[in-house]
């Protein structure tokens, strides 16, 4: 089976999005992350594995503990992916501006 491990699959899951939000401000160990969820620990581990595989998270060894932190570059990919949507509105609004500028002025 072909597993599609890309960023968009990763952020499609609410628990994984919650993990990303949690790690937005700090690095945390798997245990500390799991403590924030009712979900079973192995399930959280699985989510962490997926997020790490698609490089949204990075692991860092600190002494005996492994800390997870956000990979800012990959998060930027998500922003890049909004770009076509932004451009679509930008073009629409450019059209709005030119339509309104070329309105015949009322006599």
């Amino acid at each position, binding site marked *: 089976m072909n597993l599609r491990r890309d960023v968009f699959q990763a952020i499609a899951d609410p628990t994984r999005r919650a993990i990303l939000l949690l790690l937005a401000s700090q690095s945390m160990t798997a245990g500390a992350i799991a403590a924030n969820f009712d979900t079973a620990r192995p399930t959280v581990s699985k989510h962490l594995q997926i997020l790490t595989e698609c490089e949204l998270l990075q692991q860092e060894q600190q002494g005996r503990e492994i800390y997870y932190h956000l990979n800012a570059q990959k998060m930027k990919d998500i922003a890049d992916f*909004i770009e076509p*949507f*932004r*451009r679509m*509105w930008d073009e*629409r*609004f450019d*059209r709005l501006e030119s339509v309104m*500028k070329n309105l015949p002025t009322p006599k």
Partner: protein
Amino acid sequence: MERKTQVHAEAGRQELRITRQFNLPVELLFRAHSEPELVAQWMGTNVLQLEAERHGSWQFETSDAQGNVVFRANGVFHEFEPNRKITRTFEMENSPFAVQLEFLEFEALSADTSRLSMHIIFKSVALRDQLLQMPFAQGISMAHDRLEKTARQSLPPIS
């Protein structure tokens, strides 16, 4: 470089903000949203209905060159305050997308410039993300169509 149109979509939230500054007086910016023939021009769609008032309804329809309807959307205005704000629902017909709620705020920056802020609320985060992906997906498929056409044209004719 400051971009004219900005889209803010925070991860994990079922909302979206679009803001844009215009070199237009706020009155003209608002007219572009309240007069059917003007909406039709910049949105590139047919405006079947646009009752520019509280509890009024609207419906847009877009057809391809062959006359097939490729897009139809409708909704209702909940607030319609000239040069200030429009609150409306937006529903794409025959699509998996649930109805969305849109708050449009119009603001004069100077006599000749104005700003539009759109705040869109979706039924779920997943639906928002799916909608964000649409132009991307369409872009890909259009590129594929072009590629296919070019590829076909470059094939030797069958004799």
